[in-house]
């Protein structure tokens, strides 16, 4: 992670902030107006899936991207959220629009599952952590297929919603847009907080972070549960949109790998990375599956895309683009401003350096400063 905004001086920063704010407002207006312009359900279908993955991708990245613990078990929360809404609606006879009142329950179930899951899985690191998340994932998939209250292999269906196809998609567009906005806001909030700094300290060197007073288990578990809450909520929305869930679709192994791909393509550990990644990957994937119904072409193309991304844009689009912009801006000038002009603040440090410098140590303990990485 570089220091793109690090050494820019006062006036320029203000102007840039203003521009960024304007761009955000325009973007928000564009996303809100989107279904008014493109009213075709075919188009909004793409947008809804993309937004679902923007939300889950941000949630995944908020834990895995920030902490460095790559989870391949987030489908557990997503699928459990979906099943929660379905089973509750079926058993409590909730019909019509009232099913949306069940969504908070999906979020709670995601969080409740994440606590024991995290307490077991977060004791181990790296590859072992990844494999435990896969194991828990399969346990959930098999439970969904074998218990009777989950409907076995035929799964659960959602109650009928009294909307026409067009308004059905429009409603879900705004619901998923809301979910995505919440997920991005949570991720941005975490990233800016002391908590987010502690998470990244764990990613860089967990033992040293603990030595510096970070309560690593508590921090990791909190992030895991927070991420699972959002994933459970979005799982519930996804279920209502698709109107059905079966064990292999609710607990889909490719789901987790798609999340990794999206975050990786955009930029692991940045707030905007998974958003961009999801907006590129999910519509692309959907288009390929719809166009090539015989399966193998889309698989080969997706595999080739993955290879290209990892081999040629290994750091993700956002950080790579940030480097290019910096290169263009600093053309003809020294890339690093002379030491005397550099502000003494933390903003010029990488998070790797943070953990070792005195300022960084204070930041981890209680200071309000934070690292100026790309956001």
């Amino acid at each position, binding site marked *: 992670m570089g220091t793109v905004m690090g050494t820019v001086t006062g006036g320029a920063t203000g102007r840039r902030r203003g521009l960024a704010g304007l761009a955000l407002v325009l973007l928000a207006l564009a996303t809100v107006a989107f279904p008014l312009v493109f009213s075709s359900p075919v188009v909004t279908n793409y947008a809804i899936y993309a937004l679902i993955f923007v939300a889950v991708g941000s949630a995944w990245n908020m834990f895995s991207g920030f902490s460095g613990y790559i989870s391949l078990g987030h489908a557990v929360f997503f699928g459990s959220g979906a099943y929660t809404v379905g089973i509750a609606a079926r058993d409590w006879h909730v019909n019509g629009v009232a099913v949306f009142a069940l969504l908070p329950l999906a979020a709670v179930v995601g969080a409740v599952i994440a606590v024991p899951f995290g307490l077991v899985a977060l004791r181990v690191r790296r590859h072992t952590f990844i494999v*435990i998340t896969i194991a*828990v994932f399969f346990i959930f998939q098999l439970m969904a297929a074998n218990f009777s209250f989950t409907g076995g292999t035929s799964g659960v269906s959602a109650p009928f919603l009294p909307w026409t196809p067009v308004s059905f998609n429009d409603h879900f567009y705004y619901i998923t847009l809301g979910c995505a906005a919440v997920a991005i806001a949570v991720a941005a909030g975490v990233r800016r907080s002391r908590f987010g700094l502690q998470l990244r300290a764990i990613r860089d060197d967990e*033992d040293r972070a603990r030595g510096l007073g970070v309560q690593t288990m508590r921090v990791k578990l909190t992030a895991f549960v927070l991420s699972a809450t959002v994933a459970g909520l979005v799982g519930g929305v996804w279920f209502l949109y698709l109107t059905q869930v079966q064990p292999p679709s609710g607990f889909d192994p490719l789901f987790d790998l798609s999340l990794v791909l999206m975050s990786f393509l955009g930029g*692991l550990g940045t707030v905007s990375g998974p958003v961009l990644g999801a907006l590129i990957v999910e519509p692309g994937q959907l288009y390929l599956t719809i166009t090539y119904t015989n*399966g193998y072409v889309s*698989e080969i193309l997706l*595999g080739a895309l993955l290879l290209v991304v990892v081999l040629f844009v290994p750091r993700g689009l956002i950080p790579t683009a940030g480097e290019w912009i910096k290169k263009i801006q600093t053309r003809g000038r020294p890339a690093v401003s002379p030491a005397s002009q550099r502000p003494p603040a933390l903003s010029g440090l990488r998070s790797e350096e943070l953990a070792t410098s005195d300022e960084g140590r204070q930041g981890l303990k209680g200071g309000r400063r934070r690292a100026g990485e790309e956001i």
Partner: protein
Amino acid sequence: MARQIYQAIADGILVGGVYALMAVGLTLIFGVLDIINIAQGVLVILGAYLSYQLSVHLHLDLFLGLLITMPVMFVIGVVIQWAFIRRLRGRERTSMTLLVSYAVALIIEGILYKVYGADDRQLSASYVQSSVRLFGFYLSDIYLYGFALAVALVVALYALLYRTGFGRSVRATMQDETAARLIGIDVNRVAAVTFGVGVAVTAAGGMVYGATNSFNPNSGYDLISRLLAIIILGGLGSIGGALLASVFMLTVESLVDIWSPQWAIVVFYAALVLVLVIRPTGFFGRPPARAQ
């Protein structure tokens, strides 16, 4: 009841031998290259399809066919390592190798779909259907032969690792890559050859798997998750651990299978989680070195 239990244990040990063949390749690759090779499951299936091709079109015996499929798979493994995995460096290497090996798996799976379609296949030979009565148990011939093959290959692998100069370089690289590089070991070559050997051994596992189970291009995902559970349980990078864990896991699964076939596979993963709660490094894992 007691008979059933003994039979289940015998079955578990024999099937465990087959899984050991596949798991040993995966754990060896992990030990040397420090990656989780998600493609290993699909490579098993690829090995099974190669054997299928040889036995159906050239009428070659399954075990003789291995003399062709194993070198082919060795070359495929070396090429994968050389083309993709060698280039991955840096802090996100763990997730990058996941993505790359997943990409390789997707491409191989897609090609298999294109060539063979989605139908289930199974390898057939005279000894696939027959069984032999031993000490009052019925043991099918293919499992016995497969077990013998597993033992032979694992012994050969041990000989390669502990009796040759190359094996010494492999073990040195597993212990400390930087130090191995410093004393003049060509770590890249060791990594490429190890990947090839790991994949070649897997091809043998794939043949036995294909003779005892029906398979299609999609079967790799179920396999890789089981294999990962096995090598984590045995302790990452430990060959002996992988052997023991395969036999242990498959015996447990086969025992639970007596009472409830659909829950047997859940117990498989639950056993992994339980063991890791008690012993985070698995049976024979070394405590993780601090990454710097």
